[in-house]
């Protein structure tokens, strides 16, 4: 399976009479796009707004961030199961509007969370401050229940990313990256001396605001399975997870998974990137047992020497993480886990809710309880009134002058457990 990913850099975003990409500027026709979004009967209104890197803008509450992409050749389309038919993606050619993003906001529940600051201290903690963003502020029809509203918001984001992505279909990319996955036997023949390394990608899958979808299927209904790493780059995995802003994986993260990126870059040099296994994080203890058993069996079946395991969320996913780690290690396969920490504001407390001696190689995405101070912004897209109530905020977090003192976990993507960010600890 071989995929070419072509980057069309986007250096600015503006509204205009015609949606197009011209001279690295993304123009968006507000009317046309609004009509597309409002075709969803559950949506009462949509306001489109723009946020650029360096601007004095705060976006909150952020639900998802999505990168515009389009399939130029190869089977299937971007976001299979949602915007395209359920055909296997991950081969052929895909174009990306690099530097652009669609950000969805909307209060699905009263404590809806997640802040992206485009400048100031907060901007340093989120990768999304560096993107030219189209923000969708979506209001549901009165009486829409939370599940339906979440779905409408999710689909609006995906449809918008697809709409913008299509503008790149016939453009010439400035950079083309090629990713190739060999079959298991081809890999062994080609790199007999290199360690065989796999990646276990854990997906949040617990219910309303805690879900992830694979080819349109709710991940909590699945068994762990092998998936081509390039399938992620075409949107095979979509986020419906909105809780725990700092360490949830947005759809943008799934499209640009840094573990996949790094494993590909070392493939054939330091290691043989043998396979990617996706697994879930369910609330049912029997599911945890079953999924971690399956995951370990798949790792052994592939004859792996080492495995990287990344987690999503905190609390009971720590149990899944440790079960995966323990069972894979028990097969004689070494593991490295990627997580983040809730170690208290002073960083002195135990950082995970579960632990095991087998977990002796850990990479952290940072301490989500660390206190940060955010300056006031000239403009807020979305609504700010709930900051006192969101995770990491407290009564008095939002001052009258618009400044915010809160824990790092208020920032979308700040302690991402795929290692997307630069925060860590030694």
């Amino acid at each position, binding site marked *: 399976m071989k995929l070419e990913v072509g980057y069309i850099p986007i250096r600015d975003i503006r509204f205009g009479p015609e949606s197009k990409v011209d001279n690295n500027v993304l123009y968006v026709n507000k009317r046309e796009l609004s009509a597309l979004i409002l075709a969803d009967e559950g949506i009462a209104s949509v306001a489109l707004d723009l946020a650029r890197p360096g601007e004095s803008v705060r976006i909150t509450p952020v639900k998802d961030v999505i990168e515009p992409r389009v399939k130029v050749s190869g089977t299937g389309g971007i976001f299979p199961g949602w915007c395209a038919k359920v055909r296997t993606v991950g081969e052929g050619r895909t174009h990306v509007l690099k530097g652009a993003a669609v950000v969805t906001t909307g209060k699905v*529940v*009263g*404590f809806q969370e997640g802040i992206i600051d485009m400048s100031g201290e907060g901007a340093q903690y989120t990768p999304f401050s560096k993107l030219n963003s189209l923000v969708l502020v979506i209001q549901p029809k009165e009486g829409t229940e*939370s*599940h339906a509203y979440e779905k409408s918001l999710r689909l609006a984001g995906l449809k918008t990313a697809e709409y913008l992505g299509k503008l790149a279909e016939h453009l010439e990319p400035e950079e083309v990256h090629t990713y190739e996955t060999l079959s298991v036997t081809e890999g062994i023949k080609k790199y007999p001396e290199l360690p065989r390394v796999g990646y276990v990608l854990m997906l*949040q*899958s*617990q*219910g*309303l*605001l*805690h879900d992830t979808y694979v080819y349109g299927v709710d991940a*909590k209904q699945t068994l762990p399975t092998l998936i081509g790493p390039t399938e992620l780059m075409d949107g095979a995995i979509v986020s419906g*997870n909105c*809780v*725990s802003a700092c360490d*949830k994986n947005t759809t943008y993260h799934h499209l640009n998974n840094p573990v996949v990126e790094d494993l590909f870059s070392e493939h054939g040099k330091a290691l043989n990137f043998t396979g990617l296994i996706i697994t879930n994080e*369910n*609330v*049912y*203890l*029997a*599911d*945890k047992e079953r999924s971690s058993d399956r995951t370990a069996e798949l790792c052994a079946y592939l004859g792996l020497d080492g495995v990287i395991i990344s987690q999503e*969320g*905190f*609390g*009971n*996913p*720590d*149990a899944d993480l440790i079960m995966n780690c323990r069972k894979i290690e028990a097969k004689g396969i070494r593991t490295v886990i990627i997580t983040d920490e*809730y170690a*208290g*504001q*002073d960083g002195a*407390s*135990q950082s995970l*809710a*579960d632990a095991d001696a087998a977990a002796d190689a850990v990479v952290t995405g940072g301490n989500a*309880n660390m206190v940060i101070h955010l300056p006031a912004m000239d403009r807020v897209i979305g609504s700010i009134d709930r900051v006192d*109530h*969101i*995770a*990491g*905020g*407290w*009564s008095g977090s939002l001052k009258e002058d618009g400044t915010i003192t809160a*824990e790092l976990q208020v920032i979308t993507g700040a302690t991402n457990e795929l290692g997307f960010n630069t925060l860590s600890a030694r």
Partner: protein
Amino acid sequence: MIITNNPLVRSTYENAHGVLFVEGNYRDVLVQVRDLVHRRHHLITHPMMGSLKPNETPYRSVIVSDDPQKNVDVDSVLIIEEAILVFDRFIKTARSDRGTGSTEKMKEDFREIDLSLLGSALNK
């Protein structure tokens, strides 16, 4: 059997499943579950379900086996004891007081999330 302090879980499931309603907070639910686990009930769902931290939501629902089993399940004991330790740590170290200081509208949302998380295990 569902142990819960969430009235919405009680009203949704009381006719279909055994519900032990706890008049108390999140920790009181965990303690009730711990006592049952020591009386040989086995844990069915993880007591720290969802990404809402213990200091962020006032509601908690946990499923244990209907009847006492032959033996105490050591894994269940470890998981519930750990959950209580984590709860105490969060209440002590984190300043967020969202769980108990929520508005009525937010409490309604917390009840719904708790119901949905539990439902993801029950409606399989």
